[in-house]
């Protein structure tokens, strides 16, 4: 139990935590875990943590100067004038150690299984496309502009395939995602992308059945696929429409690419 004073320990843990947050937010590494809008809050909290660490260190100096006869141990509930280091606080260095030791990965193919795929609601996506939320799909334009094709989000593609089968993309579209497995699909592979609203804990997989002749790229590799949407038949039941095998992109080109800066899509 002996060792550095409670205030010194506080300063060290807070500084380590600040370093961890800073390491994530100063690079693009934080995008493996949270949304891009979290960069500023993360940097701000790292600054606050540094200031608190400095204040704790300064207080440690002061308490050393002030008195030499008090016991600084941190037994819970032991009331005395001195700072107390809650031992559980050491837990805060665990995520930082993990970031330092373990490669930083976003959710990948193995996380796809066990989470409900393509669980997007018709009313939300239709309302969003009507302009309630202009932030989606780059241009935020209406149905016609989106239907023209080009590079679209996996969300837009899946949304159109499920909720608006009468209006498929008229031109070839380009999707970016990683490869995951689905034993039901034998004539190609599954292009996957997680869509996140806050952090990886709430991310949900969007899955597209890519039909292609060539050999399937390895699981978890990132690809850019250009192709033509094959809409499901009009009379297909709603519960079949959401199945990955029925959300089809007939590929004309499959390119292996590096993981994009932001591996997730957001609402």
């Amino acid at each position, binding site marked *: 139990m002996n060792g550095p004073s409670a205030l010194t320990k506080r300063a060290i843990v807070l500084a380590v935590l600040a370093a961890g947050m800073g390491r994530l937010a100063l690079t693009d590494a934080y995008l493996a*875990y949270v949304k891009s809008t979290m960069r500023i809050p993360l940097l701000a909290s790292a600054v606050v943590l540094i200031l608190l660490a400095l204040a704790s260190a300064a207080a440690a100096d002061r308490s050393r100067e002030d008195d030499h006869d008090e016991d600084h141990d941190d037994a819970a509930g032991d*009331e005395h004038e001195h700072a107390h280091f*809650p031992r559980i606080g050491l837990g*805060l260095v665990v*995520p930082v150690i993990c970031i330092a*030791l373990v490669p930083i990965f976003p959710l990948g193919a193995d*996380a796809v299984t066990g989470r409900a795929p393509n669980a997007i609601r018709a009313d939300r996506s239709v309302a969003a496309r009507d302009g309630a939320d202009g932030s989606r799909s780059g241009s935020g334009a209406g149905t016609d502009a989106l239907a023209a094709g080009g590079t679209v989000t996996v969300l837009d593609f899946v949304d159109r395939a499920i909720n608006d089968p009468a209006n498929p993309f008229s031109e070839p579209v380009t999707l970016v995602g990683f490869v995951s497995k689905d034993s039901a699909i034998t004539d190609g592979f599954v292009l996957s992308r997680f869509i996140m*609203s806050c952090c990886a804990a709430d991310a949900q997989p969007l899955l597209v059945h890519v039909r292609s002749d060539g050999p399937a790229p390895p699981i978890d590799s990132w690809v850019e696929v250009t192709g033509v949407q094959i809409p499901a038949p009009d009379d297909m039941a709603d519960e079949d429409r*959401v199945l990955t095998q029925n959300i089809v992109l007939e590929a004309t080109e499959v390119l292996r690419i590096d993981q994009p800066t932001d591996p997730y899509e957001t609402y």
Partner: protein
Amino acid sequence: MDGTAHPGTDRSADDPTQPRADGDVRLMVLVVVVLVAVVLARPRLAEVFSTGQPREWMTVFIAVAVQAMPFLVFGVLLSALLAAFVSPAALVRVLPKNRAASVVAAGGAGMALPGCECAAVPITGRLIGGGVPAAAALTFLLAAPAINPIVIVSTATAFPGQPELVLARFLASLATAITMGLLWLRIGASHTFDQLIERAQHSRKVEGKWHTFTDAAAHDLLHAGGWLVVGAAAAASIQVIVPRSILEALGGYGLLAVLALGLLAVLLSVCSEADAFVATSFTAFSPTARLAFMVVGPAVDLKLIAMQHGTFGIRFTRLFAPLTFGVAILWAVVAGSFL
């Protein structure tokens, strides 16, 4: 300032009555052993966490911790402001004298804190330490993450064209918070929060408002943050180990479905600002069941249970968490019956 060249060892130099050198030597040995182990194990660790469930676990664990950190920092800054600049007398004065009225007022005050549940725990700890009646403070704890403007806007975004669902969430969450507060007036009298009151007294003994502020902020951050990490690890483990399909299979079974999604909200520990988007994905479930997911989540989940256990004690959490779960399910069912 003597001996600052060796931070962490200098206390032994000026305190001969305490055998602190032993502690320092042990700490040094421990650090060296850990460092060596880590250097040796790193390639193996990288391999293990590069694929499969370990990789998913690590991503979710770090994501929950990182996502919560800015909110936690914001929360402890507020809790430290309470500790340093708001006297207990002032805190008690702003609340209505009538205890039931103070519970209702605390529920309404929850609308003003734009954070999620991680921010509310340290603030509630300081409120109780500062003399606010526990029932009112706990009502605030439950209301703040559930009915603040950010959560309402994100719920409306997730369920466009369904204002009745947004309203149902708001009312059921507020009712849950107030019901728990009123219940606590009856059953919570025997519960004391000595630790919180002692901590508040300790903070007031620190000289100078600025020092009180930084002391309280640093302490609360380490305390709540440490438990948050425990909760994040538990939530990540559940996400990886329990396939959602097990609970989702219960979609068609009425009340069982409501309980299943309520339980899933506890286990997944999704932030209150994100849970509406997750709720939209349970397409096989009734609106009432989804409502239960959104009403239970901000009130009881694994990371909250861990943080509450740290702040309020195990005896409290054993009673409070299950009771809150039951009350939240009840109000979700009531509100859901109007949908």
